């Protein structure tokens, strides 16, 4: 994907300073970069490859292999509907359908207004509260399809369940 604007690489410089410049640091560096930029900007990926001395092709293979990384900018709020077994049999599928119906986004896609990105996650380990969806940082246990609209609107601030 072509980038619309050049990205500042200062944050990446700071991250790279904290790790030994070797291939073994690659995944940890990319994770920090992802956290800082909310995705892996092309310029930064090139910089990481050069600094760590890893071929660019290898960096891309790692960046596309692991679920934690996205090469596209992510929305302000990440919606993760848990697709673990316990959530599945307790009706997690209905949550997925409802998110898709309300936002019209396919898995790993972002709404055009850049508000939401829908990610899938194969179990967040909160099975006792199945089905679970996470909006931003907020876990919604025993989630119901009828309430999905409310969860999205409330975002990650409210603490009531």
């Amino acid at each position, binding site marked *: 994907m072509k980038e619309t604007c050049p990205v500042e690489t200062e944050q990446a410089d700071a991250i790279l300073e904290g790790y030994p410049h*070797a*291939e*073994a*640091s*690659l*995944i*940890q560096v*990319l*994770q920090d970069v992802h956290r800082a930029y909310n995705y892996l900007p092309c310029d930064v990926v090139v910089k990481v490859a050069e600094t760590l001395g*890893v071929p660019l092709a*290898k960096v891309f*293979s*790692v960046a596309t*292999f*692991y*679920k*934690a*990384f996205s090469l596209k900018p992510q929305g302000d709020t990440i919606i993760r509907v848990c*697709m*673990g*077994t*316990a*959530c*599945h*049999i*307790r*009706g997690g599928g*209905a949550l997925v*359908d*409802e998110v898709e*119906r309300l936002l019209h986004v396919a898995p790993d896609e972002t709404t055009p207004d850049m508000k939401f990105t829908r990610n899938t*996650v*194969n*179990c*967040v*380990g*909160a*099975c*006792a*509260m*199945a089905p*679970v969806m996470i909006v931003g940082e*907020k*876990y*919604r*246990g025993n989630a*119901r*399809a*009828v309430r999905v609209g409310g969860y999205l609107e409330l975002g990650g601030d409210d*603490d*009531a*369940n």
Partner: protein
Amino acid sequence: MRIESREQFETLQEKIRAAETDNGNRILVCCGTGCLANGAKKVAEAFAEQVGKRNMDAEVKLLVKNTGCHGFCERGPLVVLQPSGVLYTRVRVSNVPQILEKTVDNGEIIPRLLYKNPADDVAIEQYSEIPFYKNQTRVAMRNIGRIDPTAIHDAIGAGCYSGMVRALFDMTPEQVLDEVETAGLRGRGGAGFGTARKWRSCRRAEGDRKFVLCNGDEGDPGAFKDRSIMEGDPHSILEGMVVGAWAVGAHEGFIYVRDEYPLAVLNLTLALEQARYLGLLGENILGSGFDFDIRISRGGGAFVCGESSALMLSLAGKVGEPRAKYVHSTEKGLFDLPTVLNNVETWADVGAIAANGGAWFAGMGTNKSKGTKAFSLVGKVKNTGLIELPMGTTLRHIIYDIGGGVLNDRPFKAVQTGGPSGGCIPESLLDLPVDYEKLTEAGSMMGSGGMIVMDDRTCMVDVARYFLKFLTEESCGKCTPCREGLKQMLAIFDRLVEGEGVAGDLPLIERLAAGMQVGSLCELGKSAPNPVISTLRYFRDEYVAHIEDHVCTAGICKELTAYRILPETCDGCAGCAKACPVDAITGERHALHVIDHDICISCGACMGVCPTDSVETFPKVELMKEVV
């Protein structure tokens, strides 16, 4: 302050314990992921604030501890009061003043907050009397819920690091290996390989640089015991790893944690810093002359990285594609150097074995599977959460006595164990004693301890398809049988759940499954057909119903299922009409509501909200018959 010797450590431990007994009044607030999601943080803050105010002019100070997961997540936030042992469930901030005034000050119980046993609806006061806890034997999870995982002093007071001290000062590496062998400890990550055997082969391997790794990449959907141990008792993992490193002669360790477990990463990081500060990790541990340190590595979110060779490649910053198993990682593991990799739970067991001896551990369990095992009991069961039991406990005891039976008292259909590599065990095998061998014989496996209970409203074809879809996404793609086999198998299942199955599908699935079992490179591919094979073995009639009659007996597969409202019981509350996302339900208030089958998308939202259970499913083919 760095602890320089064994004597100093033991003095510190005694001091901590003496201070604990002086101050018996404690409030334990569970701050595991589950309880936090239910608002435990605010409850803990409210306790801290209000108790802080009281303590200023109180003689006997009250202590508030934020503990790790108690395992009873469904009832969270959980609060335990000590010394009385009273457990309150679903505690809200507004309950905090009441709890302090009534229960802490006057010993008065607040019945509303007590746990009610679903079996007889009787409220239970004591934490230790609740069937969910009463029937457990906790080894790996021994300290969880009792200690504050962010305070190393608390862990030391609870006995943590005593096993490490014993191993480093009283035992040679050979003696540690013997002790672990006597314990009969086997890998808790699922495959059940003998821990002592693994360690011995690494000890024997040539080279000065060796590694000890902890696998915290708990990827099996439906399992979260490792998450709870990492969050709730990180020091027991560190302790076990030091013992293991001493036994094999390693000086460097890594913990590979799922990035989806942020609290686990945080608590482990804190634990490492504190242990280093006290000299329990790093150079010359407690003056013993032994050096060992641990680093944390966050996983990138790939299920396959739970596989040992893939995990080691991922640690080295590479793509996690497994390699053939004739190269043993105990000889050529991380960076091609001798490496021991064990699961979180295994490491937590090691510390307890070092402290209490192998014979103690081997005294629990069955002939070939010793000790205890942690499970996450989830799905359609009344009490969901984490449990730990001696090996050989029957499924019936687990599901009915501890789990309280099937949710809403519906009929039991199956229990799924072993994650995507495991299988579904039917009702006829409920008296099966759970150990490595028995589960494998039943066509499933131990896996990482997920136990998902399924009722009559669970479609086994859909469950098998669910795991295929999961594995298709998670297959690394390196070998053809796994990559293509899964894809083709999923295509067949996609047809089955839509009622498009044909006569030859089942034999075709079986041939494909056999090919994948033989031809795949790693265990992910080899075991991938297990959920399919086990459901075919025990629930073949459901498959046949999907193919021949176009009926999903459980009423789950959308393309085959329609919904209707029963006129006898519908009270016209209009809840279903409100819940329906496509406005397919009409009806006057207080009168029967009706579903328009042309609009209905079979999402089941109406069924979920109906207070009188008046919505039922029926096969869609019946609609066709009506038209004809």
